[in-house]
């Protein structure tokens, strides 16, 4: 509406509504800022730090930083993209991301974001953690090897489904996803395929069983265009 409710993102004017964060306004206006733990349908979390931008020269996570009038935001600059690439490399070496045999390949935000940022190698030494698969549930599988701790499933289950199926436990590098069952098995929770939480994982942790690889190469989400040109379906104007 009014002219003063806007900021610039890499030189382009972006309008915003009171209370919007930088990334919310940017996405609504069709601009891409790399992100993983952010999903426009949920309250910002601010953990992955991929969406770090420079707002008036100060580095900040654009998913938690509210837009301010006249703010000068830099995002698509080498300095930040270099840092984002290192953050991605950290996520890749922390878990076991074997894209070649992962059914989420081609539909995976982590992978697509790494393509977007030209990540050619994991750079660091791999951690190769031991994380068993939970296949106890009749319809869904949890492959913790690929968890990036974005907590979208935690938020979806708690805030949308009202169930609290997922939670984080452990600390530091030992942080990990757990489910709400004494046995530790998804089958013993009240998780259901109709839950929002079943459909928010940006990587290949929460998977519907027995349908892996049903979409041929070439027709997957990020086959045709890069993630920067593939707007989130829930963003208005997309």
């Amino acid at each position, binding site marked *: 509406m009014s002219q003063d409710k806007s900021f610039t993102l890499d030189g382009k004017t972006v309008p915003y509504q009171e209370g919007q964060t930088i990334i919310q306004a940017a996405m609504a206006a069709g601009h891409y800022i790399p992100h993983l733990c952010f999903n426009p349908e949920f309250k910002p979390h601010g953990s992955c730090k991929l969406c770090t931008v420079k707002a008036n020269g100060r580095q900040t*996570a654009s998913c938690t930083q509210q837009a301010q009038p006249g703010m000068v935001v830099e995002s698509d600059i080498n300095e930040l993209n270099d840092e984002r690439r290192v953050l991605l490399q950290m996520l890749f*070496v922390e878990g076991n991301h074997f894209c070649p045999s992962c059914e989420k390949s081609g539909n995976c935000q982590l992978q697509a974001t790494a393509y977007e940022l030209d990540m050619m190698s994991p750079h*660091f030494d791999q951690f190769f953690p031991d994380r068993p698969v939970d296949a106890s549930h009749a319809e869904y599988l949890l492959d913790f090897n690929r968890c990036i701790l974005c907590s979208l499933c935690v938020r979806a289950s708690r805030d949308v489904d009202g169930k609290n199926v997922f939670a984080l436990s452990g600390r*530091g590098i030992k942080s990990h996803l757990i489910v709400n069952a004494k046995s530790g098995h998804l089958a013993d929770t009240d998780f259901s395929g109709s839950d929002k939480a079943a459909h928010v994982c940006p990587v290949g942790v929460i998977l519907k069983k027995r349908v892996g690889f049903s979409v041929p190469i070439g027709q997957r989400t990020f086959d045709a265009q890069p993630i920067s040109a593939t707007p989130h379906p829930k963003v208005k104007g997309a």
Partner: protein
Amino acid sequence: MMTSQTNVHAEYLNPILARRQHNPNDLLQILREAQEQHGYIHTDAIDYLSLELKLPRAKIEGVAGFYSFLYLQPRGEYRVLFSDNITDRMLGNMELLENMCAQLWVEPGKVSEDGLLSIETTSCTGLCDQGPALLVNNIAINRLTPARVSSICELIRERVPLSAWPQEFFAIEDNIRRKDILLGSDFKSGAALSALFQRGADATLQEIKTSKLRGRGGAGFSTGMKWEFCRNAAGDAHYVVCNADEGEPGTFKDRVLLNGYADMVFEGMTLCARVVGAKQGFLYLRGEYRYLLDHLQAVLQRRRQQTLLGTSILGEAGFDFDIEIHLGAGAYVCGEESALIESLEGKRGTPRNRPPFPVTNGYLDRPTVVNNVETFASASLIALNGGAWYAGIGTETSSGTKILSVSGDCERPGLYEYPFGVTVAQVLAECGARDTQAVQVSGASGVCVSADEFERRIAFEDIPTAGAFMVFGQQRDMFEVARNFVHFFAHESCGFCTPCRVGTSLLSNMMDKLANGHGSPYDFAEIEKLNGLLQSTSHCGLGHAACNPVLDTIAKFRPAYEKRLAHKDFVPAFDLDAALSQARQMTGRDDTGAHLERSHESR
């Protein structure tokens, strides 16, 4: 469904739940007390708590999984944790640990087969002036010697209850070496509150502002402004929180203040409560200081009897305030005020997104003042003696005094209170440090000061500090100092944000690579790069600070690193020949082809 198994846990959980009024915000306290009863947190106990507190069990498990002093698996009847600050290392803690492990036939980190004990390390326990130290079932023992270790082994073997152990093991000393206005005051309980009543709350706030008192936790935010913001913030309740999560390696002044000066601290909190309109206060005491709990509860009880706490304080109708003590459970990050508030609310100690700040959205989303132990004690002095008096001490921008926790290579480790502006050299001289190579001021996240900087001053405008002052003589290896701190940060990272969670572990691995003789200039460059990223993208101060010790030591003690760059070219972090050992064992081979020499260091 209630099984007989859960009933077993109900027996000890019910009284705890009743005392905690089934308040889910007290989850951490309930878990801690449950563990004191049962030794660890049984999965059935989680079920029972889930039912009684109406919390998802995953949430309870997630909280229990966060704190290093809470165990989801049995850890032995005697859980021994050796303090592993660099000062403990310098005093030979690792040799003592190995010695104890050997005597008791147990591997570090593992529970003995008979379930009797486990021996591990933990972050600095705040006994650097009387180390090496350890915690047995979270109770501190100081001044470890081989003899003392042998006695402990004997007591454990004989299954002697902790209460029957020799009292001198637990005799923690104050070691006050230099007193000034705070440590030297003859403070009388209630005196500051009387002054408050005479002056009024508004004027008292004004005095605090006039005093230019700044937060003693290290960041140095104006205490007066903080109180004012909180006072002006809308909310149906306000809270006062005293941050006694003194986790910064090398700091132990809060330990002494709470032991000998608790009235000053509580009275400062009460002043604050009057100013901001709070009815409830919390002392968040680090789990390592569990042994102070009974003493502090007694002080609180006495103050209630003296009507210095409770309803109508000192007869003033409507002035109701009380203080509850919450214990931490081994998480350095909870020293960060928003993480501390999460922890107070019974959650994982993950720092919040800021803004909003605690002064408007703190405990239970209500306006909250979080101040350091020393800050509250100082506030009591200011209420008594006036802001102008206090502002006249110290320097222009750093008023008052600062208590330093001096440890390391000096003759008289302990507490030294100085007016701000004291030089590093003066402190060194008075504590009997000779031939000093460096001083780490303000702990692992602080500044490493080298000999040519000893004329610098302890003050917010020069070297700000939360109080730690670790002295390193010429014989010390500053690389090892930095490596110890890097491990500390990796252990204490909360795991919330990517750069800190993964970056601190990567950094530890790289420092270990150098320590193991596999370093090259390539690794050196990698360490510098990683530090830059941690600094610019981490979520909170822990991540930002995690690179400080390395960056500082690289800048000031570069030869300590260069000595480690044994190779001109990149070599692997792991030992290639060792990587074949399993296969050698499986095949019984030991021919030349069954070995790999280290890389050819020729090109």
